[in-house]
């Protein structure tokens, strides 16, 4: 099986939660629903303290095109507009909602929309926007933006990313296993949304890419998609970061997305990548016009008594979710997301949001002593973006972060492979983040300078 160059094989630890079917976690009394759970401008609250809300009712409208709507996960009363911690570390505006426990549905939410199959591509994109659907693989990029590429870019493939290459995480696997038909319907909707009106139906093909450690799902998908002309399942080798967009496209279609310096995006090579959860959410939104206010995530780790996969309402606090599965005192690190790219939380009050694919509690302590780089070349061999990671850390040690631009630091996807394999335990990803924080303003200033000069010449 072909794959991208580089990458690494961490122990996948999926056995802890792979066989646990998805359970519903009851919503707590109080939920803090963040207004910015997506890439783009935060949503504007349209309810005040004291308003009564129902499940699925719009409580924050998208401000601008690259933004996403936010809906109430429970029915009850809005207590206040407060601020809360975002996993990324910054604090964001949020709505504190008191749950009355009755789960009163907003109107038309949950009703089966009879002619959902022949909805026009335009309506699919509108539904995605109204339902606040965002990429659920962790990037949380608003789906309606991805589904409306500019005319110049013609899309020929939609890839459903079922790689789930992060260790411990099994939520996509369980979704695929238990709700295979709905995910396939979701993929069909995605394909139809991206098929230009004048083109023949099977111009855009849909591929569900699964890693080889989830063979049962792959076989099930294969026989369900036999008769479909433009839909197929593809098996991929087990390797981290197989699920990263550029690496996924390289493995599945052997195309390479151009680098950041040329503002490369998957649509430049005619591809749109979506997460399995996103496809399912789109299906539920189009058919049952159910907005995105809950998602499946994996709770696992060696400091969790009973690891499992839970359907959790957005806004539930991390503490509530972890307590539901029994967190032991040996936990020293709580991670939102996977162990390779996830974020270590300092406060368990941080609420679950649309992009939280996992909550892990690990007991391994993180005090690896950093040693000097012995230029063993492991990071250079394993880097999936074929960069020279050791350069970022050696330049970082002497504070010359501005020179990392020359070594393409902005193209780093921060997958963590270099830091994982480094025998000297050097925090290369942290050096990259600092490098980007130094280089991006420099590039912006230079572009600004260039633009002002051109204006002076033509002005």
């Amino acid at each position, binding site marked *: 099986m072909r794959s991208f160059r580089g990458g690494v094989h961490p122990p996948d630890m999926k056995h802890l939660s792979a066989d646990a079917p998805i359970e519903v976690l009851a919503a707590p009394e109080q939920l803090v629903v963040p207004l910015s759970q997506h890439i783009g401008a935060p949503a504007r609250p349209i309810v005040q303290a004291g308003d009564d809300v129902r499940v699925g009712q719009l409580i924050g409208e998208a401000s601008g095109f690259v933004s996403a709507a936010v809906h109430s996960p429970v029915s009850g009363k809005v207590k206040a507009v407060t601020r809360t911690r975002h996993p*990324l570390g*910054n604090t964001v505006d949020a709505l504190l909602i008191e749950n009355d426990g009755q789960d009163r549905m907003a109107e038309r939410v949950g009703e089966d929309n009879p002619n959902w199959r022949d909805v026009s591509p335009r309506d699919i994109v509108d539904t995605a926007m109204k339902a606040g659907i965002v990429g659920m693989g962790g990037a949380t990029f608003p789906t309606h933006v991805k589904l409306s590429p500019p005319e110049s870019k013609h899309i020929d493939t939609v890839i459903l990313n079922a790689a789930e290459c992060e260790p411990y995480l099994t939520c996509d696997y369980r979704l695929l296993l238990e709700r295979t038909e709905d995910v396939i319907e979701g993929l069909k909707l995605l394909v139809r949304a991206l098929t230009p009106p004048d083109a023949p139906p099977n111009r855009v093909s849909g591929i569900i890419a699964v890693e080889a450690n989830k063979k049962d799902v792959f076989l099930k998908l294969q026989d369900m998609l036999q008769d479909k002309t433009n839909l197929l399942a593809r098996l991929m080798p087990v390797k981290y970061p197989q699920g990263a967009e550029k690496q996924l496209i390289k493995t599945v279609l052997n195309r390479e997305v151009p680098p950041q310096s040329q503002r490369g995006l998957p649509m430049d090579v005619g591809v749109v990548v979506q997460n399995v959860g996103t496809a399912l959410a789109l299906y539920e939104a189009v058919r049952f016009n159910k907005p995105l206010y809950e998602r499946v995530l994996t709770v696992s780790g060696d400091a969790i008594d009973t690891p499992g996969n839970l359907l959790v309402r957005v806004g539930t606090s991390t503490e509530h979710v972890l307590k539901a599965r029994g967190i032991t005192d040996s936990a020293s690190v709580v991670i939102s997301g996977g162990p390779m790219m996830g*974020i270590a939380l*300092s406060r368990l009050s941080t609420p679950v949001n649309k992009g939280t694919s996992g909550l892990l509690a690990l007991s391994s302590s993180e005090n690896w002593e950093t040693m000097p780089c012995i230029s063993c070349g492991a990071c250079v061999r394993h880097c999936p973006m074929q960069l020279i990671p050791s350069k970022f850390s050696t330049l970082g040690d002497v504070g010359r972060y501005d020179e990392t631009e020359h070594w393409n630091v902005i193209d780093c996807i921060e997958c963590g492979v270099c830091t994982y394999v480094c025998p000297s335990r050097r*925090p290369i990803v*942290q050096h990259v983040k600092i490098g980007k924080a130094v280089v991006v303003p420099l590039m912006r200033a230079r572009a600004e300078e260039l633009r002002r000069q051109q204006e002076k010449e033509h002005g």
Partner: protein
Amino acid sequence: MCPVLPVTVAASAGGYTLFGVLVMLVIGAVLGLVLFAASRFFKTDVDERVEKILDVLPNVNCGACGFGGCAAYAEAVVYKGSACSLCAPGGADVECRIAEIMGASVGDREPLVAVVHCGGGTRSAHSAAGYYGIASCRAASVPGLNSPKACVFGCLGMGDCVAACKFDAMVMGDDGLPLVIESNCVACGACVRACPRNIIQLHPLKSFVHVYCINTDKGRDVRKACDIGCIACMKCEKICPVDAIHVINNVAVIDYDKCISCGKCVKECPQGIIVNMRKTRKEIDRLRQPVPGGTS
């Protein structure tokens, strides 16, 4: 070059010097002509300001300015716009003269000093989590890393400002907060740029009352993060006789043009976060004196 040059003359002892002079004359003349022709042929025009700056510079070619020599530095100032103040041996007057040649004016402005607007040291600010990673403030405030300190605005105390200061005007206090040694501080702004949380600002040297907090959260959240943070109780705003202090976005901010450093707000503030620097200056100078055996 006729080979018949009087060999006999060369043979006599006196002839060596005469002969040597003769040969040098010939070679010097020939090469001089060649170079003259070449300089005409390879004429390049040079910005005359480079010559002027070169005259001003001490022409010691010491390289302290970071360039290969005085000529390289002169060209760097003219072509690349490098700073006028890099000539160490030249000092201030060379800097002024270069600035005049380059047309920039070096006006004298009111002396400023750096102030660290955070009082939440290890004794009063709460820690949120153990931090593992590169020991620098900039590293500890990258996106995707939760703040190790409960207060997401406060000083992380990892000394980026102390490292950035080239005039030894910053020293790390024992409670994990940087202290500004005002006599050394030339307000160059290096620390202001170095602090990733923008806690350090430049204020007039003459005013010595400062608010040591920039936490814009509401009072309830501030208390959770730090014992002495500004809880926006507005008392200072009411007491101030010259209306120089206002609570903007949940934190008290001083307008240094109006402030007369009367210190009324210092006594009024329940959190004690507004501090009269006069008495602490003595303490800082004490800290600056090299304690025998101690390291700053």
